[in-house]
Protein backbone atom coordinates (compact mmCIF):
# COMPACT_ATOMS: atom_id res chain seq x y z
CA UNK A 1 0.00 0.00 0.00
CA UNK A 2 1.51 3.25 -1.15
CA UNK A 3 0.21 6.70 -0.19
CA UNK A 4 -0.65 9.30 -2.81
CA UNK A 5 2.18 11.71 -3.65
CA UNK A 6 2.78 14.68 -1.42
CA UNK A 7 5.24 17.49 -1.02
CA UNK A 8 7.51 17.09 2.00
CA UNK A 9 8.72 19.81 4.35
CA UNK A 10 11.03 19.36 7.30
CA UNK A 11 11.13 22.59 9.32
CA UNK A 12 13.83 23.06 11.96
CA UNK A 13 11.97 25.50 14.20
CA UNK A 14 8.43 25.87 15.48
CA UNK A 15 8.11 29.28 13.83
CA UNK A 16 9.12 27.77 10.50
CA UNK A 17 6.54 25.00 10.94
CA UNK A 18 3.74 27.46 11.76
CA UNK A 19 4.81 29.62 8.81
CA UNK A 20 4.48 26.58 6.55
CA UNK A 21 1.00 25.78 7.90
CA UNK A 22 -0.03 29.39 7.17
CA UNK A 23 1.44 29.32 3.68
CA UNK A 24 0.26 25.85 2.64
CA UNK A 25 -3.27 26.11 4.02
CA UNK A 26 -5.70 23.33 4.90
CA UNK A 27 -4.16 20.76 2.52
CA UNK A 28 -1.10 20.55 4.77
CA UNK A 29 -0.88 17.93 7.50
CA UNK A 30 1.55 17.71 10.40
CA UNK A 31 3.61 14.53 10.77
CA UNK A 32 4.92 13.68 14.23
CA UNK A 33 4.96 9.99 15.25
CA UNK A 34 2.95 9.13 12.16
CA UNK A 35 1.53 5.94 13.65
CA UNK A 36 -2.06 6.99 12.89
CA UNK A 37 -1.39 9.31 9.95
CA UNK A 38 0.84 7.01 7.86
CA UNK A 39 -1.56 4.00 8.00
CA UNK A 40 -4.41 6.34 7.02
CA UNK A 41 -2.35 7.71 4.11
CA UNK A 42 -1.47 4.17 3.00
CA UNK A 43 -5.16 3.24 3.01
CA UNK A 44 -5.80 6.56 1.23
CA UNK A 45 -8.37 7.53 3.81
CA UNK A 46 -6.46 10.81 3.86
CA UNK A 47 -4.20 12.16 1.11
CA UNK A 48 -2.64 15.43 2.21
CA UNK A 49 -0.92 17.44 -0.52
CA UNK A 50 1.74 18.67 1.87
CA UNK A 51 3.40 16.98 4.83
CA UNK A 52 5.07 19.14 7.44
CA UNK A 53 7.34 16.79 9.39
CA UNK A 54 8.03 18.32 12.81
CA UNK A 55 10.35 15.51 13.96
CA UNK A 56 13.48 17.55 13.35
CA UNK A 57 12.47 20.48 15.55
CA UNK A 58 14.75 20.27 18.59
CA UNK A 59 13.64 20.58 22.19
CA UNK A 60 10.10 19.20 21.94
CA UNK A 61 10.69 15.65 23.20
CA UNK A 62 10.47 16.33 26.93
CA UNK A 63 8.51 14.72 29.75
CA UNK A 64 9.31 16.88 32.73
CA UNK A 65 8.10 17.97 36.15
CA UNK A 66 7.97 21.73 36.41
CA UNK A 67 5.91 24.36 38.17
CA UNK A 68 3.58 21.85 39.86
CA UNK A 69 2.82 20.25 36.51
CA UNK A 70 3.92 17.34 34.42
CA UNK A 71 4.70 18.74 30.99
CA UNK A 72 4.75 16.58 27.88
CA UNK A 73 6.27 18.08 24.74
CA UNK A 74 4.96 17.64 21.21
CA UNK A 75 7.60 15.05 20.32
CA UNK A 76 7.61 12.98 23.53
CA UNK A 77 7.09 9.36 22.49
CA UNK A 78 4.73 6.97 24.22
CA UNK A 79 7.59 4.78 25.42
CA UNK A 80 8.93 7.71 27.48
CA UNK A 81 5.83 7.49 29.70
CA UNK A 82 6.59 3.87 30.54
CA UNK A 83 10.02 4.59 31.98
CA UNK A 84 9.53 7.96 33.71
CA UNK A 85 10.11 8.05 37.50
CA UNK A 86 7.76 10.95 38.13
CA UNK A 87 5.00 9.14 36.24
CA UNK A 88 5.54 5.86 38.04
CA UNK A 89 5.42 7.56 41.44
CA UNK A 90 2.91 10.38 40.95
CA UNK A 91 0.87 9.58 37.84
CA UNK A 92 0.84 5.81 37.31
CA UNK A 93 -2.41 6.20 35.34
CA UNK A 94 -0.28 7.60 32.49
CA UNK A 95 1.96 4.52 32.41
CA UNK A 96 -1.19 2.32 32.53
CA UNK A 97 -2.49 4.18 29.49
CA UNK A 98 0.71 4.12 27.46
CA UNK A 99 1.11 0.36 27.94
CA UNK A 100 -2.31 -0.21 26.39
CA UNK A 101 -1.51 1.78 23.25
CA UNK A 102 -0.74 -0.36 20.20
CA UNK A 103 2.50 -2.29 20.83
CA UNK A 104 6.09 -1.47 21.91
CA UNK A 105 7.29 -0.88 18.33
CA UNK A 106 4.54 1.62 17.62
CA UNK A 107 5.19 3.27 20.99
CA UNK A 108 8.80 3.89 19.94
CA UNK A 109 7.47 6.37 17.38
CA UNK A 110 3.98 7.42 18.44
CA UNK A 111 3.69 10.70 20.34
CA UNK A 112 1.47 11.47 23.33
CA UNK A 113 0.44 14.85 21.90
CA UNK A 114 -0.42 13.21 18.57
CA UNK A 115 -2.70 10.81 20.41
CA UNK A 116 -4.79 13.85 21.42
CA UNK A 117 -4.38 15.91 18.25
CA UNK A 118 -5.69 13.04 16.12
CA UNK A 119 -9.10 13.56 17.77
CA UNK A 120 -10.01 9.88 17.61
CA UNK A 121 -12.49 8.84 20.34
CA UNK A 122 -10.88 5.36 20.21
CA UNK A 123 -7.51 6.73 21.31
CA UNK A 124 -6.58 6.14 24.93
CA UNK A 125 -4.93 9.32 26.21
CA UNK A 126 -8.00 11.54 25.78
CA UNK A 127 -9.91 9.72 28.56
CA UNK A 128 -6.89 9.81 30.85
CA UNK A 129 -6.27 13.50 30.20
CA UNK A 130 -9.96 14.21 30.88
CA UNK A 131 -9.67 12.35 34.19
CA UNK A 132 -6.52 14.31 35.07
CA UNK A 133 -7.89 17.72 34.10
CA UNK A 134 -5.02 18.38 31.69
CA UNK A 135 -4.50 21.55 29.68
CA UNK A 136 -3.48 21.56 26.03
CA UNK A 137 -1.04 24.22 24.87
CA UNK A 138 -1.53 25.26 21.24
CA UNK A 139 1.04 27.38 19.42
CA UNK A 140 0.06 29.33 16.33
CA UNK A 141 0.74 32.55 14.42
CA UNK A 142 -0.63 34.62 17.33
CA UNK A 143 1.48 32.83 19.94
CA UNK A 144 0.43 30.34 22.59
CA UNK A 145 -2.97 29.66 24.05
CA UNK A 146 -4.17 27.14 26.60
CA UNK A 147 -7.21 24.95 26.03
CA UNK A 148 -8.78 22.95 28.86
CA UNK A 149 -8.95 19.31 27.79
CA UNK A 150 -12.71 19.27 28.47
CA UNK A 151 -13.10 21.76 25.56
CA UNK A 152 -10.63 20.05 23.23
CA UNK A 153 -12.86 17.44 21.54
CA UNK A 154 -15.89 19.20 20.05
CA UNK A 155 -16.79 16.38 17.64
CA UNK A 156 -15.78 13.17 15.90
CA UNK A 157 -12.17 13.40 14.68
CA UNK A 158 -12.29 17.11 15.47
CA UNK A 159 -10.24 19.10 17.94
CA UNK A 160 -10.24 22.70 19.14
CA UNK A 161 -6.96 23.31 17.29
CA UNK A 162 -7.05 25.92 14.53
CA UNK A 163 -5.59 24.76 11.18
CA UNK A 164 -2.48 26.88 11.72
CA UNK A 165 -1.90 25.74 15.28
CA UNK A 166 0.37 23.00 16.62
CA UNK A 167 -0.31 21.13 19.84
CA UNK A 168 3.03 21.84 21.50
CA UNK A 169 2.50 20.70 25.08
CA UNK A 170 0.21 18.87 27.47
CA UNK A 171 0.19 20.23 31.02
CA UNK A 172 -1.05 17.97 33.78
CA UNK A 173 -1.44 19.31 37.33
CA UNK A 174 0.57 17.07 39.66
CA UNK A 175 -1.93 15.42 41.99
CA UNK A 176 -1.74 16.22 45.71
CA UNK A 177 -0.88 13.58 48.34
CA UNK A 178 -3.43 10.79 48.80
CA UNK A 179 -4.25 10.72 45.10
CA UNK A 180 -4.44 7.73 42.83
CA UNK A 181 -5.55 6.83 39.37
CA UNK A 182 -5.85 3.93 36.97
CA UNK A 183 -6.69 3.28 33.35
CA UNK A 184 -8.34 0.04 32.32
CA UNK A 185 -9.22 -1.09 28.85
CA UNK A 186 -10.61 -4.20 27.25
CA UNK A 187 -9.01 -4.94 23.88
CA UNK A 188 -9.58 -8.01 21.73
CA UNK A 189 -5.86 -8.40 21.10
CA UNK A 190 -2.64 -6.42 21.60
CA UNK A 191 -2.76 -3.29 19.48
CA UNK A 192 -6.51 -3.16 19.06
CA UNK A 193 -8.56 -0.10 19.85
CA UNK A 194 -10.58 -0.30 23.04
CA UNK A 195 -13.88 -2.16 23.10
CA UNK A 196 -14.22 0.27 26.00
CA UNK A 197 -11.77 2.00 28.32
CA UNK A 198 -12.13 3.87 31.60
CA UNK A 199 -9.74 6.32 33.28
CA UNK A 200 -10.28 7.22 36.93
CA UNK A 201 -8.28 9.68 39.05
CA UNK A 202 -9.23 10.47 42.66
CA UNK A 203 -7.95 12.47 45.62
CA UNK A 204 -8.81 11.63 49.24
CA UNK A 205 -8.88 13.84 52.34
CA UNK A 206 -7.48 12.82 55.74
CA UNK A 207 -10.77 11.15 56.66
CA UNK A 208 -10.55 9.04 53.51
CA UNK A 209 -13.37 10.83 51.67
CA UNK A 210 -13.03 11.54 47.98
CA UNK A 211 -12.50 15.28 47.51
CA UNK A 212 -12.12 15.15 43.76
CA UNK A 213 -12.73 12.58 41.05
CA UNK A 214 -12.01 12.62 37.33
CA UNK A 215 -13.54 9.99 35.06
CA UNK A 216 -12.88 9.66 31.32
CA UNK A 217 -14.32 7.11 28.89
CA UNK A 218 -12.68 5.72 25.73
CA UNK A 219 -14.45 4.65 22.53
CA UNK A 220 -18.00 4.70 23.81
CA UNK A 221 -19.21 7.80 21.98
CA UNK A 222 -18.55 10.17 19.11
CA UNK A 223 -15.93 11.91 21.26
CA UNK A 224 -13.94 10.97 24.36
CA UNK A 225 -16.38 11.39 27.24
CA UNK A 226 -15.85 13.20 30.54
CA UNK A 227 -18.28 11.48 32.90
CA UNK A 228 -19.28 14.63 34.76
CA UNK A 229 -22.29 13.14 36.58
CA UNK A 230 -20.14 10.34 37.95
CA UNK A 231 -17.48 12.84 39.02
CA UNK A 232 -20.08 14.98 40.82
CA UNK A 233 -21.59 11.92 42.46
CA UNK A 234 -18.23 10.80 43.86
CA UNK A 235 -17.18 14.17 45.29
CA UNK A 236 -17.29 14.20 49.10
CA UNK A 237 -18.16 10.50 49.41
CA UNK A 238 -16.36 7.63 51.05
CA UNK A 239 -15.52 5.16 48.32
CA UNK A 240 -17.08 2.07 49.85
CA UNK A 241 -18.44 -0.81 47.83
CA UNK A 242 -21.95 0.63 47.48
CA UNK A 243 -20.64 4.04 46.34
CA UNK A 244 -18.32 2.48 43.76
CA UNK A 245 -21.19 0.34 42.50
CA UNK A 246 -23.46 3.33 42.05
CA UNK A 247 -20.68 5.40 40.42
CA UNK A 248 -20.07 2.58 37.97
CA UNK A 249 -23.74 2.48 37.03
CA UNK A 250 -23.76 6.26 36.58
CA UNK A 251 -20.69 6.10 34.31
CA UNK A 252 -22.37 3.39 32.23
CA UNK A 253 -25.41 5.67 31.80
CA UNK A 254 -23.13 8.48 30.63
CA UNK A 255 -21.55 6.36 27.90
CA UNK A 256 -23.02 6.53 24.38
CA UNK A 257 -21.67 3.42 22.65
CA UNK A 258 -22.79 2.09 19.30
CA UNK A 259 -23.04 -1.46 17.98
CA UNK A 260 -19.98 -2.43 15.96
CA UNK A 261 -17.58 -5.27 15.30
CA UNK A 262 -16.28 -5.05 18.89
CA UNK A 263 -19.68 -5.62 20.45
CA UNK A 264 -23.20 -4.39 20.96
CA UNK A 265 -23.96 -1.05 22.58
CA UNK A 266 -25.53 -2.89 25.51
CA UNK A 267 -22.41 -4.98 26.03
CA UNK A 268 -20.12 -1.95 25.89
CA UNK A 269 -22.29 0.00 28.31
CA UNK A 270 -22.04 -2.87 30.77
CA UNK A 271 -18.31 -3.03 30.17
CA UNK A 272 -18.05 0.65 31.17
CA UNK A 273 -19.83 -0.26 34.40
CA UNK A 274 -17.41 -3.10 35.18
CA UNK A 275 -14.27 -1.20 34.17
CA UNK A 276 -15.32 1.92 36.13
CA UNK A 277 -15.71 -0.14 39.30
CA UNK A 278 -12.33 -1.79 38.78
CA UNK A 279 -10.57 1.47 37.86
CA UNK A 280 -11.98 3.21 40.95
CA UNK A 281 -10.93 0.30 43.16
CA UNK A 282 -7.38 0.39 41.82
CA UNK A 283 -7.29 4.21 42.04
CA UNK A 284 -8.37 3.93 45.67
CA UNK A 285 -5.65 1.36 46.42
CA UNK A 286 -3.06 3.65 44.88
CA UNK A 287 -4.39 6.71 46.73
CA UNK A 288 -3.86 4.74 49.95
CA UNK A 289 -0.27 4.04 48.94
CA UNK A 290 -0.63 0.69 47.17
CA UNK A 291 0.77 -0.10 43.76
Amino acid at each position, binding site marked *: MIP*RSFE*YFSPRTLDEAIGLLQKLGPEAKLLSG*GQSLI*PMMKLRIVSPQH*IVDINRIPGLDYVTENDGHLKIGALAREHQLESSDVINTKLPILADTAKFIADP*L*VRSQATVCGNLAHGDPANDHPATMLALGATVVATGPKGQREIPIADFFPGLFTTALEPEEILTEIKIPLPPAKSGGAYLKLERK*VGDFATAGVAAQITLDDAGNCTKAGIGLTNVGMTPIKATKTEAFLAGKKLDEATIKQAAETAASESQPMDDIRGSAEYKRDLVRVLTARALTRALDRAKGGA
Partner: protein
Amino acid sequence: MDKVAINVNVNGVDHAAEVEPRMLLVHFLRETLRLTGTHIGCDTSHCGACTVVMDGRAIKSCTAFAVQADGRKIMTVEGLEQDGKLHPLQDGFFQEHGLQCGFCTPGMLMTGYAFLGENKKPTDDEIRHAISGNLCRCTGYVNIVKAYQYAAQKMRDNGGA
Protein backbone atom coordinates in the same frame (compact mmCIF):
# COMPACT_ATOMS: atom_id res chain seq x y z
CA MET B 1 6.32 15.42 -6.96
CA ASP B 2 9.96 16.33 -6.54
CA LYS B 3 12.33 13.75 -5.22
CA VAL B 4 14.22 14.43 -2.04
CA ALA B 5 17.91 13.69 -1.46
CA ILE B 6 18.55 11.59 1.60
CA ASN B 7 21.57 10.05 3.24
CA VAL B 8 20.95 7.08 5.46
CA ASN B 9 23.47 5.00 7.34
CA VAL B 10 22.40 1.39 7.10
CA ASN B 11 24.39 -1.22 9.01
CA GLY B 12 27.35 1.15 9.18
CA VAL B 13 27.37 2.08 5.49
CA ASP B 14 26.23 5.50 4.23
CA HIS B 15 23.76 5.41 1.36
CA ALA B 16 22.87 8.54 -0.61
CA ALA B 17 19.70 8.37 -2.67
CA GLU B 18 16.93 10.45 -4.18
CA VAL B 19 13.51 9.24 -3.12
CA GLU B 20 9.90 10.21 -3.53
CA PRO B 21 8.68 11.56 -0.18
CA ARG B 22 5.93 8.93 -0.14
CA MET B 23 8.40 6.04 -0.33
CA LEU B 24 8.15 3.92 2.80
CA LEU B 25 11.31 3.06 4.66
CA VAL B 26 10.76 -0.68 4.10
CA HIS B 27 10.58 -0.15 0.33
CA PHE B 28 13.75 1.94 0.41
CA LEU B 29 15.58 -0.86 2.24
CA ARG B 30 14.26 -3.69 0.10
CA GLU B 31 13.99 -2.13 -3.35
CA THR B 32 16.52 0.70 -3.45
CA LEU B 33 19.22 -0.91 -1.33
CA ARG B 34 18.21 -4.51 -2.14
CA LEU B 35 18.40 -5.46 1.53
CA THR B 36 15.58 -7.97 1.42
CA GLY B 37 16.11 -9.41 4.89
CA THR B 38 13.55 -6.93 6.20
CA HIS B 39 10.15 -8.45 5.37
CA ILE B 40 6.80 -6.95 4.47
CA GLY B 41 4.11 -8.92 6.23
CA CYS B 42 0.78 -7.25 6.89
CA ASP B 43 1.74 -3.80 5.56
CA THR B 44 -0.71 -2.37 8.12
CA SER B 45 1.51 -1.83 11.18
CA HIS B 46 0.31 -4.96 12.95
CA CYS B 47 2.74 -7.82 12.36
CA GLY B 48 6.24 -6.46 12.99
CA ALA B 49 7.93 -8.46 10.18
CA CYS B 50 9.36 -5.14 8.91
CA THR B 51 10.95 -4.16 12.24
CA VAL B 52 14.27 -2.36 11.99
CA VAL B 53 16.27 -0.42 14.57
CA MET B 54 16.45 3.33 13.96
CA ASP B 55 18.81 5.31 16.21
CA GLY B 56 18.63 2.54 18.80
CA ARG B 57 14.87 1.98 18.88
CA ALA B 58 12.93 -0.78 17.16
CA ILE B 59 10.30 0.61 14.78
CA LYS B 60 8.02 -0.70 12.03
CA SER B 61 9.59 0.32 8.72
CA CYS B 62 6.24 0.00 6.92
CA THR B 63 5.01 2.90 9.03
CA ALA B 64 7.81 5.39 8.42
CA PHE B 65 8.83 7.30 5.31
CA ALA B 66 12.34 6.89 3.94
CA VAL B 67 12.80 10.67 4.16
CA GLN B 68 12.34 10.41 7.92
CA ALA B 69 15.48 8.26 8.06
CA ASP B 70 17.61 10.98 6.46
CA GLY B 71 20.72 11.46 8.60
CA ARG B 72 19.78 8.58 10.91
CA LYS B 73 21.30 5.18 11.64
CA ILE B 74 19.31 2.13 10.60
CA MET B 75 20.16 -1.41 11.52
CA THR B 76 18.56 -4.30 9.69
CA VAL B 77 18.86 -8.04 10.14
CA GLU B 78 21.78 -8.00 7.65
CA GLY B 79 23.76 -5.99 10.21
CA LEU B 80 23.59 -8.56 13.00
CA GLU B 81 26.29 -10.96 11.83
CA GLN B 82 29.78 -9.55 12.38
CA ASP B 83 32.96 -10.96 10.79
CA GLY B 84 31.24 -14.20 9.91
CA LYS B 85 30.04 -14.70 13.48
CA LEU B 86 26.37 -14.91 14.29
CA HIS B 87 24.98 -12.41 16.77
CA PRO B 88 24.00 -14.08 20.10
CA LEU B 89 20.34 -13.59 19.13
CA GLN B 90 20.82 -15.39 15.82
CA ASP B 91 22.67 -18.11 17.66
CA GLY B 92 19.82 -18.28 20.18
CA PHE B 93 17.19 -18.71 17.46
CA PHE B 94 19.35 -21.47 15.95
CA GLN B 95 20.03 -23.29 19.24
CA GLU B 96 16.50 -23.01 20.63
CA HIS B 97 14.66 -23.61 17.37
CA GLY B 98 13.19 -20.09 17.50
CA LEU B 99 11.76 -20.29 14.00
CA GLN B 100 9.73 -22.58 11.80
CA CYS B 101 8.88 -20.80 8.54
CA GLY B 102 11.20 -17.89 9.39
CA PHE B 103 9.06 -15.10 8.01
CA CYS B 104 8.73 -13.19 11.28
CA THR B 105 12.33 -13.90 12.29
CA PRO B 106 14.06 -10.73 10.97
CA GLY B 107 11.53 -8.60 12.88
CA MET B 108 11.80 -10.77 15.98
CA LEU B 109 15.60 -10.43 15.87
CA MET B 110 15.57 -6.66 15.49
CA THR B 111 13.02 -6.17 18.27
CA GLY B 112 15.26 -8.39 20.40
CA TYR B 113 18.37 -6.42 19.48
CA ALA B 114 16.86 -3.15 20.76
CA PHE B 115 15.17 -4.83 23.74
CA LEU B 116 18.21 -6.74 25.04
CA GLY B 117 20.26 -3.58 24.65
CA GLU B 118 18.07 -2.03 27.35
CA ASN B 119 17.20 -5.07 29.44
CA LYS B 120 20.17 -7.33 30.08
CA LYS B 121 18.33 -9.77 32.33
CA PRO B 122 14.70 -9.93 31.24
CA THR B 123 11.99 -12.14 32.71
CA ASP B 124 9.99 -14.32 30.33
CA ASP B 125 7.03 -12.03 30.95
CA GLU B 126 9.05 -8.95 29.95
CA ILE B 127 10.12 -10.71 26.76
CA ARG B 128 6.52 -11.60 25.95
CA HIS B 129 5.53 -7.95 26.34
CA ALA B 130 8.52 -6.83 24.25
CA ILE B 131 7.48 -9.05 21.33
CA SER B 132 3.78 -8.22 21.57
CA GLY B 133 4.10 -6.19 18.35
CA ASN B 134 5.68 -9.09 16.44
CA LEU B 135 3.38 -11.84 15.26
CA CYS B 136 4.57 -15.39 14.61
CA ARG B 137 1.89 -17.27 12.72
CA CYS B 138 3.68 -20.57 13.31
CA THR B 139 2.96 -19.61 16.94
CA GLY B 140 6.50 -20.50 17.94
CA TYR B 141 6.50 -18.05 20.81
CA VAL B 142 7.71 -20.48 23.47
CA ASN B 143 10.93 -21.12 21.60
CA ILE B 144 11.31 -17.46 20.66
CA VAL B 145 11.23 -16.56 24.36
CA LYS B 146 13.84 -19.27 24.99
CA ALA B 147 15.96 -17.89 22.15
CA TYR B 148 15.87 -14.42 23.69
CA GLN B 149 16.90 -15.89 27.06
CA TYR B 150 19.73 -17.83 25.41
CA ALA B 151 20.95 -14.63 23.77
CA ALA B 152 20.62 -12.58 26.96
CA GLN B 153 22.66 -15.17 28.85
CA LYS B 154 25.31 -15.31 26.14
CA MET B 155 25.51 -11.52 26.00
CA ARG B 156 25.94 -11.37 29.79
CA ASP B 157 28.67 -14.03 29.58
CA ASN B 158 30.40 -11.98 26.89
CA GLY B 159 30.24 -8.88 29.05
CA GLY B 160 27.34 -7.26 27.25
CA ALA B 161 28.70 -7.76 23.74
